[in-house]
């Protein structure tokens, strides 16, 4: 009995834990398909794919992705090289120096990213000045600084991954190659590197992902090269739209895809290894094999996910939410008109009561509804619309993204507009 309670509470805990972990991502993904201009999952209005279109038309996002890729490639090259050198050095130096050396190369993981960014900026600025170079020199270039700043700590991650593999390397192999007449460079390239390849690959992926999502360091160093993360942060801070949810959804999907593919691959290799042990000769190119999916849940999920994606993309091209959006708009318009009628009736009554104060009274009446989009139709009464003729209020400015009562009325969106205007 006691055991049963324990088991139930474990599952409740696990459920809550993963709800906290995955819930936000699921809800964020859902908002990418809802038509209101402010990202939210409730109330659900219309299924729409237009935010994906808006995303792919956003020059700044696309430019940010390009910069992120550039920075990522540079960081991967530099930090894997430095991490490998650092790991090799760690296995060779004497025990006395090793602890100091290890503390130095592990420290960047613990130093706050903000501090790394600042120190990189200050240090290279000083070098730049000492060399007497101008403000537009290579050393003060955003791309260079960002790669340098990120590599400082990403190299430590790479080092940890590489050291784990290097510990299993037998130095005798290199010595044997040297005895057989290989040069040091040949021994390095033909013996050590092939052995390290899996670890180098995982360190590279890790470095790229870490670089891609870095914000704290990059925000001080990016200069003329805002990465995707920087652009996202700007957008999120100054007004949010579901286009960001759409991007997040794509990233979530890609991550899940990558993780499942990796898992399926590991499983497949394990099965092949097992089969080899049993003496059977498996078909290594097992992708065409139906048995590929057997007993490999990750692979099954992967295939299902791929089918799902293709279906959704397929329907997205054919589906148009225009009718639904128009319906929602119509309901909102009716609701709004009703509100206006009520207001007008009330005002008429007021006017009759106190002729002298009618103007002020009406003013205050009008501005009662909050400008935030608390209620489905509250925004219609936002101060901007009130300056118009009241009857026209409900059909107020058609949002350019053609999304019902889109972000025109959303205070955050107004902010963003201001932002983009001022830039």
């Amino acid at each position, binding site marked *: 009995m006691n055991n049963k309670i324990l088991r139930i509470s474990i599952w409740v805990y696990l459920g809550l834990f993963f709800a906290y972990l995955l819930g936000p*991502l699921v809800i*964020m993904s859902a908002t990418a398909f809802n038509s209101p201009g402010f990202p*939210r*999952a409730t109330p659900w209005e219309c299924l729409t794919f237009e935010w994906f279109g808006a995303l792919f038309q956003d020059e700044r996002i696309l430019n940010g992705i390009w910069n992120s890729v550039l920075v990522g490639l540079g960081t991967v090259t530099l930090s894997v090289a430095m991490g490998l050198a650092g790991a090799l050095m760690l296995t060779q130096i004497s025990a006395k120096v090793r602890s100091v050396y290890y503390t130095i190369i592990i420290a960047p993981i613990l130093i706050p990213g903000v*501090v790394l960014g600042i120190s990189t900026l200050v240090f290279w600025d000083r070098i730049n000045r000492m060399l007497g170079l101008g403000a537009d020199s290579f050393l003060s270039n955003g791309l260079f600084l960002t790669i340098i700043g990120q590599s400082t700590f990403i190299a430590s991650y790479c080092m940890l991954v590489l050291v784990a593999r290097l510990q299993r390397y037998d130095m005798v192999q290199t010595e044997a190659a040297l005895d057989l007449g290989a040069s040091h460079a040949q021994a390095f390239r033909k013996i050590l590197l092939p052995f390290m390849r899996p670890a180098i690959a995982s360190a590279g992926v890790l470095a790229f992902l870490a670089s891609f999502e870095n914000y704290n360091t990059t925000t001080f160093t990016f200069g003329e090269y805002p990465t995707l993360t920087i652009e996202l942060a700007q957008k*999120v801070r100054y007004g949010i739209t579901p286009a960001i949810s759409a991007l997040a959804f794509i990233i979530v999907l890609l991550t899940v895809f990558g993780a499942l593919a990796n898992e399926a691959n590991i499983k497949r290799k394990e099965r092949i290894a097992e089969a080899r042990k049993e003496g059977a000769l498996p078909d290594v190119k097992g992708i065409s094999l139906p048995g590929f999916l057997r007993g490999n849940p990750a692979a099954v999920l992967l295939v299902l996910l791929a089918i799902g994606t293709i279906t959704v993309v397929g329907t997205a091209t054919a589906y148009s939410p225009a009718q639904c959006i128009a319906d929602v708009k119509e309901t909102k318009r009716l609701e709004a008109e009703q509100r206006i009628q009520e207001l007008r009736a009330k005002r008429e009554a007021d006017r009759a009561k106190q002729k002298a104060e009618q103007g002020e009274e009406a003013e205050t009446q009008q501005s009662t509804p909050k400008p935030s989009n608390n209620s489905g139709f509250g925004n219609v009464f936002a101060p901007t619309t009130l300056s118009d003729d009241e009857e026209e209020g409900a059909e107020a400015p058609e949002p350019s993204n053609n999304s019902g009562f889109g972000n025109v009325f959303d205070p955050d969106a107004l902010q963003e507009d201001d932002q983009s205007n001022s830039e």
Partner: protein
Amino acid sequence: MTGFLKEFFNRNGIGVGAIMLGLVLFWTIGLIVLPQLSMLDFSFRPNLPPPEIGGPKDVYTLENYKYLVFGPEGGGQDYNAVDLRVFYRTLIAAALVTIFNLILCYPISYYLGQSEGNHIRIFALMLIIPYWINEILRAFALRIIFGETGVLNTVLIGSGVFDQPFDFIRNDIALYAGLGYAYILLMIFPMYNVIESLDRNQIEAARDLGAPWWRIHWRVVIPYAKPGISSGCTMVFMLSAGALAAPQILGGPSSLWFTQLIYQQFNDNNDWPQGAAYAVVLLVTCIALVLAVMRLFKVNMGDIGK
């Protein structure tokens, strides 16, 4: 030293050895040590326009540090109450986030470390996936949930808990949830690594001797997992105290995080030495706190990063 170099080049060859040594020196000296020293040096200098740097006015001064404690000169206050309060609040909140994460993550680390089966791998995958989503997007996701018209408020009002939307952002609940959310994996991973290597027989033995479950954890599992717990706590504390994205996106309008002050000094006030001084203060205080707590719980520095 020369003996080491000779052996080093003998072992690795001139070419490979030189490249290796060059990379290591560039990384340790050029990227880690010198920039930190440079920042420290910079924090003791006055804020001068570029032409005057290196000139007669460029002398060492404690001005930047004084500013943090006493505020602007002639400002009429005894202390720089605003910045000091932000600093204090940041450290307290980071410590609370760390404790929250520890309590949240210890059970799952134990569960993952001590059970077997296929579902463990799926759980591990589910843990890792959110970690690869951009930090900004994770904060954004929480903002959607905690916003005034967000999912949480809709649910709470719908179920009648509140009749007014509750402002999670202004009350900093969103910020704490976001910081905790961002570093879950960094807490789980070190703990999981240690607990996984704990011999299950030890737990069995304790159980056979009649220990209740909480005493098994208190006397067997936690002492064994101490290095993992301290690594996890150190990482989460340092990263939350140094977080910038989550406070910028989820922080209330009236409350600041210390890193935001640093950011303002650099980007809005254009006072780099002042920002550098704040950064030094943050770094030194965090390291001192971590070392103090580690001494308190008798954990060695060498256990970190295992």
